[in-house]
């Protein structure tokens, strides 16, 4: 039986029915990984031995007649900016090339209680700064639908692993679209939960007030199940929410009757790809035909979101990344004295994009510029938040494209950072407002590259997002198609 192409909930059923073992499943996924990884390069570290041991332990539980949890024995990948005790965590940066954390991120601790099989650490743009995974300090990841294209980013490795069958589910992180946009580019489901819904303890910080960990999965059912595991308050993260966590699988119902879905005109920007617009509008029509009510809404400050984001995120990044100085951990390039040591280490081991953002951030925070840039950005941020508050008085969910284009060619945009930044227009405002968002596959471009529908929810209302996304997903079959590339169906 081919197993790598199935979603976790089907595999869970097969494990419970003892039709397959966790070891068989893991071996199948690892064989698939062997076949495709050379082309996709989704991983920075592969933990085959650990995976097979974990699978064996789950098989022993099953043999002993124990009930197993949803993720038990299911192969998953973790983005390599999430700390894993004893397993190298690089953030795709040369500066942390050999860094092995002495502790697990809180999400990893929560995952481990479910006994999943962790097959490796997924590639990303260095320190999650980028939207194509081309900024990885080691190598770019390729889109499993067309290996000449980018998988999106920064969680490009996580999305490509799930799309190519090298993992059944993955964890990503989203600061300005880094889960939703690669999910859209790779034809999988990706959710950025509400800021504070999932603990950030152990997520290597890029922009602390925007970062959020979330699931990347084959379908909405898996998304709800993974979110159930990772959501909830954590004493180690003072910004994590105390709000009760509902059982998200209760929202896996097909029902959008009377649901008010807002359509923000500001998200259908000039220069948007025709195929994207068509697919997204079709999806919205589909939701309407399923009983939802479509309401035009306006989010007037959307046009300031990119500039706001590219002041706040780099400012936070500039300080967050100060700790990488070659003194007590990480790589070091020596110098004549301590200042030279720090300078050498940082200037030679950080990549171009990371250095660019550190410089922008320090500029925005420096004496004489703080009020004009950083402080002003914080004020605009509250206006963007207010846009949503106003819109959500009229609607339950907002629908929009996840990205203005499908996946583009590797190298196409890398020399034009500003053009690249504009790619974030549909995703960044949610992070600024702290809202949850989900991207679900909603069709293909003429070149058969996946397109994502983005649904945006009220704070802590992931349940409604899941219900809406599930209802839409079940009305078509985009989520059932797997990326085709060499090594398919051995």
């Amino acid at each position, binding site marked *: 039986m081919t197993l790598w192409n199935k979603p976790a909930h089907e595999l869970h059923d097969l494990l419970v029915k003892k039709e397959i073992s966790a070891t068989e499943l893991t071996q199948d996924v690892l064989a698939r990984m062997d076949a495709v990884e050379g082309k996709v390069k989704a991983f920075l570290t592969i933990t085959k031995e650990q995976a097979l041991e974990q699978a064996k332990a789950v098989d022993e539980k099953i043999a002993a007649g124990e009930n197993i949890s949803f993720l038990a024995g299911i192969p998953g990948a973790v983005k390599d*900016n*999430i*700390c894993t005790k004893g397993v190298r*965590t690089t*953030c795709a940066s040369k500066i*942390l090339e050999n*860094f092995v*954390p*002495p*502790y697990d*991120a809180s999400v990893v601790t929560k995952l481990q209680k479910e006994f999943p099989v962790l097959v490796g650490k997924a590639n990303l743009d260095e320190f999650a700064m980028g939207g194509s995974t081309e900024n990885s300090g080691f190598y770019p990841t390729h889109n499993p639908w067309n290996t000449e294209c980018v998988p999106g980013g920064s969680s490009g490795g996580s999305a490509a692993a799930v799309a190519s069958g090298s993992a059944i589910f993955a964890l990503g992180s989203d600061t300005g679209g880094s889960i939703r946009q690669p999910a859209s580019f790779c034809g999988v489901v990706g959710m950025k939960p509400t800021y504070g819904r999932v603990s*950030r*303890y*152990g*997520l*290597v*910080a890029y*922009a*602390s*007030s925007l970062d959020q960990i979330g699931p990347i999965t084959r379908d909405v059912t898996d998304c709800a199940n993974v979110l159930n595991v990772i959501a909830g308050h954590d*004493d*180690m*993260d*003072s*910004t994590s929410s105390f709000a009760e966590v509902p059982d998200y699988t209760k929202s896996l119902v097909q029902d959008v009757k009377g649901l008010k879905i807002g359509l923000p005109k500001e998200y259908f920007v000039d220069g948007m790809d025709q195929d994207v617009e068509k697919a997204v509008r079709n999806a919205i029509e589909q939701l309407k035909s399923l009983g939802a009510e479509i309401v035009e809404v306006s989010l007037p400050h959307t046009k300031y979101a990119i500039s706001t984001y590219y002041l706040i995120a780099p*400012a*936070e990044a*500039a*300080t967050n990344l*100060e*700790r*990488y*100085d070659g*003194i*007590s*951990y990480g790589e070091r390039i020596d110098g004549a*004295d*301590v*200042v030279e040591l*720090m300078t050498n280490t940082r200037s030679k081991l950080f990549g171009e994009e990371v250095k660019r953002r550190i410089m922008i951030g*320090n500029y925005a*925070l*420096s*004496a004489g510029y*703080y009020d004009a840039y*950083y402080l002003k950005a914080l004020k605009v941020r509250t206006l963007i938040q207010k846009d949503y508050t106003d819109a959500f008085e009229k609607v339950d969910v907002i629908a929009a494209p996840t990205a203005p284009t499908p996946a583009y060619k590797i190298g196409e945009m890398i020399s034009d950072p500003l053009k690249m930044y504009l790619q974030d227009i549909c995703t960044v405002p949610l992070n600024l407002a702290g809202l949850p968002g989900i991207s679900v596959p909603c069709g293909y471009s003429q070149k058969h590259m996946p397109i994502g529908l983005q649904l945006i929810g009220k704070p802590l209302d992931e349940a409604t997002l899941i219900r809406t996304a599930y209802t839409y997903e079940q009305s078509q079959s985009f989520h059932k198609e797997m990326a085709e590339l060499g090594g398919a169906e051995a």
Partner: protein
Amino acid sequence: MKYEAVIGLEIHCELKTKTKIFCGCETGFGGDQNTHVCPVCLGLPGVLPTINKRVVEFGIKAGLATNCTINKFSKFDRKNYYYPDLPKNWQTSQYDLPIAEHGWVDIDVEGEKKRVRLTRIHMEEDAGKLVHSGNTIKDSASSNVDYNRTGVPLLEIVSEPDMHTAEEARTYMEKIKAIMEYIDVSNCRMEEGNLRADVNVSIRPVGSKELGTRTEMKNINSFKSLVDAIDYEIDRQTEVLEDGGHIVQETRTWDPNRGITLSMRSKEDAHDYRYMPEPDLPPIVTTDEQIEAYRKELPELPDARRERLEKEYGLSDYDAGVITASRPMAEYFDEVVAGGADAKLAANWIMGELAKHLNAENKTIVDSPVEPARLAAMIQMITKGTISSKIAKTVFEEMWTSKDAPEEIVKAKGLVQITDTKAIEEIVDKVIADNPKPVEDYKGGNKKAIGALVGQVMKQSKGKANPQMVNQLLAQKLG
């Protein structure tokens, strides 16, 4: 030209919490290098801070005890600068919304009351400690970093430049130390670096309202260094100005061994700290009820206690000031008085013999081998006339080295005062007979000559004769 100094202090006060400000590590002094550390205080990738609520409580109490306004909405900020003892290369501190602002304390300098205003009190984390193979970072082949202190909570108490002499600065710092001890937020052990000050000094012509260019001396960790460094800096600046030069705004270090200040870095090298609100810590929101609850927990503060001692026991302003300058001493005093001792005698003995013995052995009053109850018993023996004040010194000496009660010491050594008129009379008669010269002098009108005779009587009675009785009898007999 005559110059006047303008002095301001930033006092760093280490808080006596069990754990660090943002993690669960112990704060204890000492310990092998890098044993009180965890991922959070080491600033490893991915870690987040969580606030130790005691630190906020202590910050609020310190603010209340120094007449500050408590900011009900306060927040932490990142103060960014690169230094190897700072694992994140920023210090989590407070910038524009500190926990407390606009306070004051009163100090007494040479009998005059003076008010020193407090700009603010803010909470922050301490840095680690560099251990150099040589003397300084510059002449060392290598340096190690000990992160045990990293994340130990501090309060930074910033004064307005309201002081004009080294003496005022010292008295102010003593006052802050006393208050922090009283409210029990810090051990205030200066030798362990619990209390240290950055001192700003400038000078200006007397009568001028404008401030001169200031220099800052960092990390002064004793009262002696504080006074010496300020005096040195005032002299140095005066000399520079009198030679027609100008003061450079800079940071200087105080070298206590050589007794001089040395330039460390000038304003041009000054850091731009690029302060940023700490996104990983929610703002600290405090309610009026909480503030009032903390206010109720405050003990009697030094000023109030001093006033009480003056009123209740008639202590002089000076004595009451010395006794209440440290909470342990004030408590010791209260216990001695509660043990039945006369208050003025108790003050004299504590400030005299006890202080002398403690200083000689470098002990604090908490470690005194003479417990308050024993000192009280001894003082009662003086008041009752059982022993003379002179004998009492011998008794105290015994009490310092043995655990015995003063009554037992007096009994064992036969130190009871002779108050038997007949016994004293016998000695007096003998002394008058043996010392014709002073007797003649006295009779000839030199009344002072009696002193020599009293001395002789005391000597022959081995100090045990009641001095008042001796005086009386001699005067009687010499007519």
